[in-house]
């Protein structure tokens, strides 16, 4: 083994203490100014920023939740309104239907009664005409028969006259 040189500085001396203190003190001042403060500032500012962002997002979230509630309420009321509108339309439709049906029935009734009146009047008129024509015809037939019986000899003349009249311009007008 080689020779071992170990020095142990156990006795404190004033000069060493002073130097160590000065070193510590100066290092403290420098570290405080150069290292601690700027880095702490960064940390504090970052913390503030993160905090403000968290606060902001919380506010936004609550706002969004409120908006969602509002929206849901709107949706609910809109649904109800739509239901009401549909109900009202259905009711109105029903009313219209009933109205139209009753009107149509009334009209049909009118038309029917008018037609009945017309028919009876027509029948009456036809009846009257038939009646009058029948009278004329009977009279004509009667007069013809009477004429024939009165003047048989003249029958031929009459026929011939009739045929002549048919042939003449008198019938052609």
């Amino acid at each position, binding site marked *: *083994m*080689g020779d*071992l040189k*170990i*020095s*142990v*500085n*156990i*006795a*404190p*001396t004033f*000069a*060493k*203490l002073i*130097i*160590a*203190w000065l*070193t*510590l*003190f*100066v*290092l*403290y001042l*420098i*570290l*405080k100014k*150069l*290292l*601690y*403060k*700027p*880095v*702490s*500032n*960064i*940390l504090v*500012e*970052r913390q503030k*920023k993160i905090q403000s962002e968290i606060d902001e997002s919380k506010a936004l979230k609550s706002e969004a939740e409120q908006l969602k509630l509002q929206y849901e309420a709107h949706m609910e009321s809109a649904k109800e309104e739509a239901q009401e509108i549909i109900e009202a339309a259905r009711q109105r439709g029903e009313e219209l239907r009933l109205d139209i049906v009753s009107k149509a029935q009334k009209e049909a009734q009118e038309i029917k009664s008018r037609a009945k009146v017309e028919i009876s009047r027509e029948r009456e008129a036809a009846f009257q005409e038939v009646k009058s024509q029948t009278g004329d015809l009977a009279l004509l037939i009667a007069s013809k028969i009477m004429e024939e019986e009165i003047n048989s000899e003249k029958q031929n003349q009459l026929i011939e006259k009739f045929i002549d009249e048919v042939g003449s311009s008198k019938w052609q007008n």
Partner: protein
Amino acid sequence: MEIFITLGDKEIFIPDSIVNFVFIALFIVIFSAIVNKKAKNTNPDDVPSGFLNVVEMLIETINNLVRSTMGEHNMKFAPYILTIFVLILCSNLYGLLGFTSPTSDYSVTLALALATFVIVQVTGVRSAGGLFKYLKGFTEPNFLLTPLNVIGELANPVSLSFRLFGNILSGGLIMTLLYALFGYLAPVLAPPFHIYFDIFSGGLQAFIFTMLTMVFIGGATEA
């Protein structure tokens, strides 16, 4: 590297541990200057990235520790907590580079512990509302306990400094002895021990020192 300063007929010896301590402090200053430049060019709105992220994580961890152990009203101590944590951690890990750890020099750990002690006392006096009221607190709950209270208060910096000093010094000593033992096999066999004595123990001791500092200062503000 060791320095001799001659003042008149007095000669002051500055061992390499102290020189290393100042060197580490300088390194941290350069590092923080780079971080500072990056931090100023960074928009807080951007997604954090890169190596600034690690620094942010460190500072956030320190802030959270200070907040949970000392309370929101003691956040002004966070830069000091950050300073001693970074300084002690770097000093402890400095042994990995093959140099003497500054924290294996009792002067350094005593200076750190005394700085904490002074802060604790000043904070105690301030929060008690005057020196007399603060000193009166030592006689509670019974004036017979005053010597115990005083010893208990004075023991804090001693235990604080010797714990750190002893752990780092013993780690360094054991590593030196192990290197002598391993000889040519040292590059293969030494790393696990480095992991334990330098990284694990160094990190743990830095954390314990910082944690105890927070507890002491926090206790002083509550009293």
